[in-house]
């Protein structure tokens, strides 16, 4: 399958997507932000259709929308019940906007399905380069903030008691989350990018008990999912997203069963 240029590019892009999503996902899960990452992908959809409408690239539109909204969410009330409600409100608004932008623009509807559901054929080598740069940026930010971010994500109250600037960390994290959503949506689509941003991280939690191991397992599951997905999509011509989400869901339930089994033995 590597004889085809588009497959090589899809493979490189997915590898970078899987590494960032697996890494960021560990923190999405420990910060209880699964729901927010779902909303950010919907906002990303609106951003992409906005990009098409005004004639900038869908990726640029996505980054613009997710960045602005993630910073807005970061400055919202930190009270979680209110945050949940505000997030649902924002999410509904953005799905509506996304649909409006698409219907106003002259692009065909296949473009919309690509944004929403992902595609392995739609990606050009220029886009692959953009993805790589963004992914490397996210990884770089994580290396720099690793220690305080881990403290804040796995023990927010302790981090505050130790005098960490948790608000700043939260915004730095949301920015990387916004970028990861925008990157991931290029292959798996904005509707299902949150699969990669939440499930591998959640599965890892049931199997290993240190931060470095959580990251390794999460990145590993994420990579296995996209590689297998790409291969099966190539062979069967079925959508790649279907295979990725099925794989991650199965892994999740296996992880959960393993944890329950271990509790009883």
């Amino acid at each position, binding site marked *: 399958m590597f004889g085809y240029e588009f497959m090589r590019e899809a493979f490189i892009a997915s590898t970078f997507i899987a590494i960032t999503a697996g890494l960021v996902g560990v923190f999405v899960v*420990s910060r209880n932000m699964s729901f927010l990452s779902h909303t950010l992908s919907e906002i990303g959809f609106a951003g992409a259709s906005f990009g098409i409408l005004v004639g900038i690239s869908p990726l640029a539109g996505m980054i613009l929308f997710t960045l602005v909204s993630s910073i807005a969410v970061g400055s919202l009330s930190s009270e979680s019940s209110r945050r949940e409600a505000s997030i649902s409100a924002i999410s509904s608004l953005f799905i509506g906007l996304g649909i409006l932008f698409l219907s106003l623009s002259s692009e065909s509807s296949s473009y919309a399905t690509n944004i929403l559901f992902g595609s392995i054929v739609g990606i050009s080598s220029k886009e692959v380069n953009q993805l790589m740069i963004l992914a490397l940026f996210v990884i770089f930010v994580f290396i720099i903030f*690793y*220690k*305080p971010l*881990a*403290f804040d994500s*796995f*023990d*927010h*109250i*302790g*981090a*505050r*008691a*130790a*005098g960490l600037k948790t608000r700043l960390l939260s915004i730095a994290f949301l920015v990387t989350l916004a970028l990861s959503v925008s990157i991931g949506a290029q292959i798996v689509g904005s509707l299902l990018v949150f699969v990669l941003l939440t499930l591998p991280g959640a599965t*890892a*939690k*049931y199997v*290993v*008990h*240190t*931060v470095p191991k*959580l990251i390794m397992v999460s990145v590993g599951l994420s990579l296995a999912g996209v590689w297998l997905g790409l291969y099966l999509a190539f062979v069967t011509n079925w959508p790649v997203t279907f295979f990725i989400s099925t794989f991650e869901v199965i892994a999740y339930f296996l992880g959960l069963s393993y*944890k329950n089994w271990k*509790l009883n033995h």
Partner: protein
Amino acid sequence: MIEAKNLTKRFGKQLVFENVNFKINDGDFISLIGPNGSGKTTLVKIMMGLEKETSGKLLIDKKQNIGYVPQFRNIDLDYPLNIEQFVRLNLKFTLSPAKRKQDNETIKRILEKTKLTQLKDRPLGLASGGEKQKAYLAQSLLNDPKILILDESTASLDVEVKMQLMDLVQELNEKYNLTVIFITHDYELTKKYTSRALFFKNKTLEEVHVSDVSEDMFEMGG
């Protein structure tokens, strides 16, 4: 040493406390008591530099060397990190191998001090209430504090487990001359472990010798 001179704190127009005076010497084990909302946590925040006094003065040697064990933590059954990893969270970032080795030794020493060595691989989510409190204590001891503030750390524990935790704190207090400020609503523990109580009453603070501490001081709203 910590010394307050005419310390007053207001939030806007609302007075929290005024003209608070006290002195805490190195190695003291004191309790901080008074009804909910009387200013205990606010006072502690001023000590830690997280709030600023409205007037008066608080003299304190090294603000950064306070270990604070907060009252609530969000640790559920699925919390993934094991006890050692949880304690490690409070380590500073380093790339130097020498510093790393030193950090590993510090962790080992702290786990021993807090009697957690045997339990270090247990996921914190599956640990008992007493073990969790010990882990919180261990984490706050990581940067070698001279002052330890316990914010109602015994509140949700069984009597026996409470005593074990307090015995451990007492041991640290005696062996390492650690100053302990124990925020509590527990009359028995105040009597058994502390030498003095700082008692918030009528918007100010009274210093009470432990022999004069009475049960009615712990009544809510009292």
